[in-house]
């Protein structure tokens, strides 16, 4: 049985000025219950300002914010709405006192009775695997333990909207993975989650929806798959980790296949509709690039096959990241095993290929330069 997804928070045509030179603009954003929306953006993109708006702590200069279907306006009503929202940040901000009182705090702020609040808090400490720390002084916890306590505190009030501001960053990888797992188990289906982050791997592992924010503007909103596969512009492509970003004029286009001249005399074929003469940007997903010792045209159906000189090979997670020149720069991700089988070495020339469907094309931002 799947729960009906309800719109918890919706913002439309929002503008917020911060200082004299910065303005945040969000045409539309929606957080639905049972879903995680990641707001992905670099530092200075306006994430903190947006977070304050989402927490209903800052009213926009223009635009509409509605919470559970009702427009957000007055102060008194905002407190009522705010009490259905919660937040956990990178800094856990535990108050002095023992852990369980910290976790019980949101319930006490809502007028809950102390014993009941502590009971609930104990339940959430257990969910996050730290019931043994309940009587410890909050300031004596390690970084990872404090993060757990802060997430338990954020969930104890059973919020309709949970805001997360990098609560998984700056932790060692095992603690981080463990925390991510426990967090996902702890989520209830009626909670909408908005995760503000600059870390695309966290966005990838948690979010179903992604909104990319850069320079105060929402650049793209869509499903995680869509945003990561089909970035709408170069800024998004860079943020989602596409390294092979090329641009050039379309020289031919027919039957849904375009040819783009990415450097003089070198064409890349891409699926998509375009008009010859258009200037476009394209990106190639690194995991879709195949490397072979020698090209064998009879064995590959890839439209793009290049002789590529290897510039560097670096470890990348469990695999290897291979930087090549063909002669445009191309990055491939291969498994450690294939890198070893092929005995890849810097300086060597190999055959790199990728399908036209592995190339994503969008109008270039330099089109009118």
């Amino acid at each position, binding site marked *: 049985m799947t729960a009906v997804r309800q719109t918890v928070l919706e913002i439309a045509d929002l503008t917020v000025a911060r200082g004299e030179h910065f303005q945040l603009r969000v045409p539309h954003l929606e957080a639905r219950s049972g879903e995680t929306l990641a707001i992905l953006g670099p530092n200075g993109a306006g994430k903190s300002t947006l*977070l*304050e708006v989402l*927490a209903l*702590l800052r009213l926009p200069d223009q635009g509409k914010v509605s919470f559970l279907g009702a427009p957000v306006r007055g102060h008194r009503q905002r*407190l009522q709405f*705010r*009490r259905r*929202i*919660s*937040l956990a*940040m990178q*800094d856990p*901000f535990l*108050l*002095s006192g023992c852990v369980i009182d910290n976790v019980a*705090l*949101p319930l006490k*702020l*809502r007028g809950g009775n102390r014993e009941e609040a502590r009971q609930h808090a104990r339940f959430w400490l257990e969910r996050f695997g730290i019931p043994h720390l309940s009587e410890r*002084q909050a*300031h004596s916890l390690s970084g990872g333990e404090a993060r757990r306590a802060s997430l338990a*505190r*954020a969930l104890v*009030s059973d919020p309709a909207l949970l*805001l997360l501001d990098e609560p998984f960053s700056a932790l060692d990888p095992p603690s981080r993975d463990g925390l991510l797992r426990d967090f996902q188990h702890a989520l209830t289906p009626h909670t909408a989650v908005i995760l503000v982050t600059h870390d695309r791997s966290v966005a990838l592992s948690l979010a179903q929806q992604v909104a990319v924010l850069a320079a105060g503007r929402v650049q793209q909103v869509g499903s995680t798959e869509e945003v990561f596969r089909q970035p709408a512009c170069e800024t998004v492509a860079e943020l989602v980790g596409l390294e092979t970003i090329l641009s050039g004029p379309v020289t031919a286009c027919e039957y849904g296949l375009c040819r783009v001249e990415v450097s003089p005399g070198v064409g890349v074929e891409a699926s998509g509709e375009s008009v010859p003469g258009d200037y476009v940007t394209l990106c190639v997903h690194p995991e879709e690039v195949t490397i072979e010792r020698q090209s064998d045209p009879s064995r590959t159906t890839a439209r793009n096959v290049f002789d590529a000189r290897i510039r560097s090979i670096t470890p990348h997670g469990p695999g290897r990241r291979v930087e090549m020149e063909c002669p445009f720069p191309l990055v491939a991700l291969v498994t450690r095993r294939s890198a070893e089988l092929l005995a890849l070495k810097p300086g060597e020339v190999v055959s790199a290929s990728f399908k036209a469907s592995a190339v994503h094309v969008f109008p270039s931002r330099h089109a009118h330069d």
Partner: protein
Amino acid sequence: MQLILEAIREAGSRLLSPDSDLLSATWRTLQVSGTATFISLLLGVPSGVALALYRFPGRIFIVALINTGMGLPPVVVGLFVMLLLWRSGPFGALELLYTPSAMVIAQTLIALPVVAGLSLAALQSLPARLRLQLQALGASTLQTAWLLSREARLPLLAALMAGFGAVISEVGASLMVGGNLRGSTRVLTTAVVLEASKGNFASGIALGLVLLVLAYAINDVLTRLQQRGRERKS
């Protein structure tokens, strides 16, 4: 040298068998400075907290005023309160001049900027995003102010100590608005001034020692409270 040793010896014997003058001045000191500190705490901490948390027109002006007030010479405060309470002044009808109440008013005016200014600094020393965190956990305006003050309680205790220190040691204002009346508005500091001017150095030293011990004892209690909190925090 002989004079000093003699004076110290005599002071010691006066302390061992305190007379009613000494006891009354000590009691009056505690009463006046304690009340003044308490009132400035009631008014100063909330003002400091409000100034730290809210932006409103005129805020910078008020903060600058408080900062100036932190270094206000007690005699100027004394003069000001004296003018207000003078028989033909605006509050003359209350007949408060030369009473302990007048001293409490003057000392409150001296301690208030100290307490408010240091409370403001105490709250501002907290991480800026802590407030966002508390509000986003559902704290109302008052709850946020209360929780933040609780987090800043150690520097707030320092504000309390500084306020108390400013008034228990002050002499100019007490002398002007209290009049140093024996058994009524004579406090330890004004008594020291009187005894020294009469050449009674032994009495002066005895009174001074009581003042020091008093100030130390109170600050010792507060410091213990503060540092115990600090140990628990780290």
